């Protein structure tokens, strides 16, 4: 009898866990399924080879958004990666002290700032002085979101590098900066790169910070000091528009963005595995 009771409660607990797990992944499947369902059927070659068409006209694509997102992400990486790596190295290597405390606190606060506020900061820092919305402003805003992610992941990875390796380098007469770069960073490189890629996939879909900075554009542009299109902005604009053909473009663009972010994540995993097994 007692045995039975145990069995029943075991079954109930197991079922509860399965249901919870299902509830957890359900939203993911809903969102992805919805986008794939509506986005996939509007996919066309035109989507990635043409710019948006004027209202009322059939067809058109999001080429300018793809290129614009690419440019903005490049700018944000150019700012975020070097500063983030140095910050992570500093936190991992230096002795505890006032500066380290301040930097760590700043990074934590930066991580908690809502992305729309980051957009406003970008607006005040770059757009107002330049008197113009621009790709650079968008890149700066996104780099502020990337930065703390890279700092934290870099620090964590570098801390996991055994102290014996660091000391082996020092004992061979290497200056500290060389030890940091060629031993510590090199040993943790796989993890550091995956941290960077994760931060990239995180900001690739950001819309709010771009509203006040890159602004968006209907046109194809390479100019860094002009407003520029971005995929998330286009999705936003298309989906709040009253035109059904724009809605379908929005779904198709969402699908593209999803694929892009998925690709980054897959690359990340591959990089981690490569770095773990390859030896130079």
């Amino acid at each position: 009898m007692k045995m039975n009771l145990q069995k029943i409660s075991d079954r109930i607990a197991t079922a509860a866990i399965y249901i919870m797990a299902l509830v957890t992944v359900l939203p993911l499947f809903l969102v992805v399924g919805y986008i794939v369902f509506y986005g996939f059927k509007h996919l066309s070659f035109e989507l990635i080879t043409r710019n948006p068409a004027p209202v009322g006209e059939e067809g058109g694509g999001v080429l300018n958004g793809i290129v614009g997102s690419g440019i903005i992400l490049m700018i944000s990486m150019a700012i975020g990666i070097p500063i983030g790596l140095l910050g992570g190295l500093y936190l991992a290597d230096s002795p505890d002290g006032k500066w380290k405390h301040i930097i760590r606190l700043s990074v934590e606060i930066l991580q908690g700032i809502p992305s729309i506020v980051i957009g406003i900061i970008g607006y005040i820092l770059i757009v107002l002085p330049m008197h113009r919305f621009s790709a650079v402003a968008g890149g700066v805003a996104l780099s502020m979101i990337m930065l703390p992610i890279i700092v934290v992941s870099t620090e964590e990875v570098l801390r996991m590098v055994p102290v014996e390796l660091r000391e082996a380098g020092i004992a061979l007469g290497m200056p500290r900066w060389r030890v940091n770069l060629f031993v510590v960073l090199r040993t943790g490189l796989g993890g550091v790169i995956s941290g960077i890629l994760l931060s990239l996939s995180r900001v690739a879909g950001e819309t709010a910070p771009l509203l006040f900075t890159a602004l968006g554009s209907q046109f194809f542009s390479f100019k860094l000091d002009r407003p520029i299109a971005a995929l998330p902005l286009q999705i936003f604009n298309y989906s709040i528009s009253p035109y059904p053909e724009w809605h379908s473009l929005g779904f198709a663009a969402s699908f593209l963005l999803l694929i892009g972010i998925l690709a980054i994540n897959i690359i990340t995993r591959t990089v981690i595995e490569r770095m773990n097994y390859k030896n130079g």
Partner: protein
Amino acid sequence: MTSESDNILHVKNLSAFYGENKVLKEVDMAVKKKKITAIIGPSGCGKTTLIRCFNRLFETVSNTSLKGEILYRKQSIFSYDPTLLRKEIGMVFQRPNPFPTMNIYNNVIAGYRLNGRRLRKSESDRMVEETLKKVALWDEVKGVLFRSPRELSGGQQQRLCIARTIAVSPRVILMDEPCAALDPISTAKIEELMLELKRDYTIIIVTHNMQQAARISDLTAFLMLGELVEFGETDQIFTSPKNKRTEEYITGRFG
């Protein structure tokens, strides 16, 4: 026999601190050229700290400080550029620590490569072969030079680390319990190697293993609670120690 000029390292009134905690207390000792000096003593007595002072690795840990003087070839080690000093005074660690991101070949010449010194192919080939022969590893690894050092056994990895250390041609090799993580056969090989290396290098070895100290060292220092209790010829220390505490430790009454 014990002339001043035989001393390659001279420790004078050395004290070391972790914060307020004094881990070495006014140590005085002289290390003779091309001899093996063993440092023995119970856990936490400051053995490792002492040798980490010699290549100034101790100072790289935060919240540490030193008092006293160490002379290397009659010159204060504190007047040396630490990176140059460490090329003269190499170190082998307790756990084998080859660089996992480099193959065996590059691990041997890591002291050059990582310091940005380019070697000609013929030069580095020769150096890798010679150095690996010196540590009696060449025959075992010559076919797998471009593989990961992690494929080697612990003992082989440790000999690779010794190779990496002597490749930059130091005069002194510090060894921090180099056999602690190894099996008896690997340990025997390393001990044999140390007796070989003694011809060209001064070796200072920290060991927990008293038999090891008795087997290989010429001189033995016995440390206890940061204090250098006794220092002398190994035979004398192990057969007729002058200090009662040394005798008690060696006969296994404590520690």
